[in-house]
């Protein structure tokens, strides 16, 4: 038994880890230790990857490539391979993953199970849109190959399926061509939410990547920085990024460093520094632009021993501005809130998963220090706003959403239930799906 936490570090319940290293042995390992939940790098925030008191199947040891087609840009690999390693391998061959989330330190299995999205959804959709096929191990011993030739509904269940349909053994991913690792980037400062939406809509045609940081501490909400980027089509001489910093938060501070006193000055500084770079175009390596926090090992410790919550919602595009405004006002008046508040728009490309989070609209993601009941009350107010707008909460980030909100946001739950593996359970499924 070992204490295991997810990225939010809200708790550290004992688990029985079972290391998966050989895809051929997974069936017998599963049978011998079920029920359990697959666990990759533990970058989800709540309990989708946890199974308190029970078995977790550690998949990061299944980290072999099976093949790489440099002509077609197709990679086949075991589910424990990290997105970071795929990209570092493929970028020198002229290919990259079309979709990656805010960190590359996640496994292929985790990326599929949460149907992760990035800053380029309007152009490339979500991770599941680029999974050509996958091999799924069920706890009863059967192996299901899902792909274009057959079992498509299993693919739809497993993408975004939070690990509950089986253990993913291998996946075949379609990459997208790139000239190299460089991006042309630009940052624009905006003062109101209205300006954000104008910039965001205007950027859609000409810019592939787009994401906004929002200052959520000011009463007059809505100022922030919009960063956008395109892959640089030319090949540049230097192929190494600037020296990667090996910063790390080496220990957990006894209190949260993100608190009422630190947040405002942080945000002020960040906005002011960003504004100085307003409209300046730069060439940047994709790693620090797309995954800024990957440079700081264990940044989640910054929130102290109680851990933190992430609240990520999506609301439909119509009326999104008013909804986002009221959410931000709610957060600002609560005095909580985080340094990292991110606003993105999702495009209209449909997600393939039954429980996929990405859908057309606007998504807001924030970290919240764990302030106990006060934080929960704020979340309940946000829940009301999100549900009234017909939105949903992202399961990969969630540790506390109520069941009615989960069911409201994921209408295909009933259909999904047919594909659940009876030998798989997680903290999340126990909390919100009955078992």
């Amino acid at each position, binding site marked *: 038994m070992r204490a295991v936490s997810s990225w939010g570090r809200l708790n550290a319940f004992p688990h029985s880890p079972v290391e998966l290293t050989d895809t051929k042995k997974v069936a017998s390992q599963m049978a011998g230790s079920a029920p359990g939940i697959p666990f990759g790098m533990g970058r989800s925030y709540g309990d989708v990857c946890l199974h308190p008191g029970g078995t977790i199947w550690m998949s990061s040891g299944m980290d072999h*490539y099976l093949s790489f087609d440099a002509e077609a840009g197709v990679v086949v690999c075991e589910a424990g391979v990290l997105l970071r390693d795929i990209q570092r391998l493929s970028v020198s061959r002229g290919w990259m993953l079309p979709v990656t989330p805010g960190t590359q330190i996640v496994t292929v299995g985790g990326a599929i199970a949460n149907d992760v999205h990035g800053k380029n959804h309007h152009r490339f959709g979500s991770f599941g849109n680029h999974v050509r096929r996958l091999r799924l191990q069920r706890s009863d011993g059967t192996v299901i190959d899902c792909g274009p030739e057959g079992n498509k509904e299993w693919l739809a269940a497993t993408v975004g399926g939070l690990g509950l349909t089986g253990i993913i053994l291998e996946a075949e991913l379609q990459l997208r061509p790139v000239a190299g690792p460089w991006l042309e980037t630009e940052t624009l400062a905006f003062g109101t939410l209205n300006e954000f939406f104008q910039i965001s809509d205007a950027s859609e045609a000409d810019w592939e990547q787009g994401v906004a940081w929002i200052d959520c501490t000011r009463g007059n909400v809505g100022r922030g920085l919009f960063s956008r980027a395109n892959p640089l089509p030319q090949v540049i001489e230097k192929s190494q990024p600037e020296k990667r910093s090996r910063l790390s938060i080496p220990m957990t501070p006894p209190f949260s460093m993100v608190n009422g006193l630190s947040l405002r000055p942080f945000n002020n500084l960040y906005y002011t520094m960003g504004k100085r770079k307003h409209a300046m175009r730069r060439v940047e390596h994709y790693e620090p632009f797309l995954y800024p926090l990957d440079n700081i090992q264990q940044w989640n410790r910054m929130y102290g021993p109680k851990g933190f919550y992430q609240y990520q919602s999506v609301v439909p595009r119509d009326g999104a501005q008013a909804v986002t405004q009221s959410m931000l006002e709610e957060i600002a008046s609560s005095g909580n809130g985080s340094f990292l508040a991110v606003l993105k728009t999702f495009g209209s490309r449909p997600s393939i998963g039954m429980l996929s989070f990405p859908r057309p609209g606007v998504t807001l993601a924030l970290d919240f220090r764990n302030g106990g009941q006060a934080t929960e009350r704020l979340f309940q107010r946000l829940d009301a706003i999100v549900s009234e707008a017909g939105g949903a909460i992202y399961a990969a980030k969630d540790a506390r959403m109520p069941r009615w909100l989960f069911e409201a946001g994921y209408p295909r739950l009933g259909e999904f239930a047919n594909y659940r593996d009876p030998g798989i359970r997680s903290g999340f499924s126990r909390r919100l799906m009955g078992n």
Partner: protein
Amino acid sequence: MAEHCARLWLAEAAADVTLIGRDTARLEIIAADLRVRSPESSVTVVEGQFRDPAEIQGVVDAIRPGDPVDIALIAHGFLPDQEESQNDLTLCRDALEINAVSPALYAEAFAARMMKSGYGTIIIIGSVAGDRGRKSNYIYGSAKGLLNIYAQGLQHRLAFTSIRVTLVKPGPTATPMTARMKNAPKNMASVESVARDIVRGADHGAAVIYTPAKWRLIMLIVRLVPNFLFHKTNL
């Protein structure tokens, strides 16, 4: 461990790699992975023999005859259950043979081969367990201890040649070998970090590598504790 070392070497430069082991199916998976990571490298899988000296000699001779061997990483072994091997002499014999005699025979065969080309690096995976006999694992530990003296002697023999011998002493590491341990230690090192230490250390020609480095100090202390105190522990 050897697999991750291979990944690091192939990331630096393409090479001709021969993987020797018992489970060729497993080695084929590793070989396919290495070929993806380094398409210019050639990776061959050989079913290894580990007991019979003539067979061991045969395996070493059959590796790309005529070409010099630059690096030989001898990493095979298994961690027996201490209590079982106390009760089963055959298991005890196997543990000693596979963990001590077999790696030494391979090292001798590679040393002879490298003498012909005049250069090379032999890396032997020992263990911190070989630094002092402890009741919790002395059958495994004594086998690894044999490799300590063996590597010392071989280094002495090859001292003024261009053939280097590196003995690696990892602390507990998260690998398939330790995955089966009943009471696995809590903070095992990652196999990636151990592999990095091995590749870097061997590149510098280190004679003995402790990985992670803290084990050098820990084992120094463990070795120096007098028996009357040590025997009271459950180590």
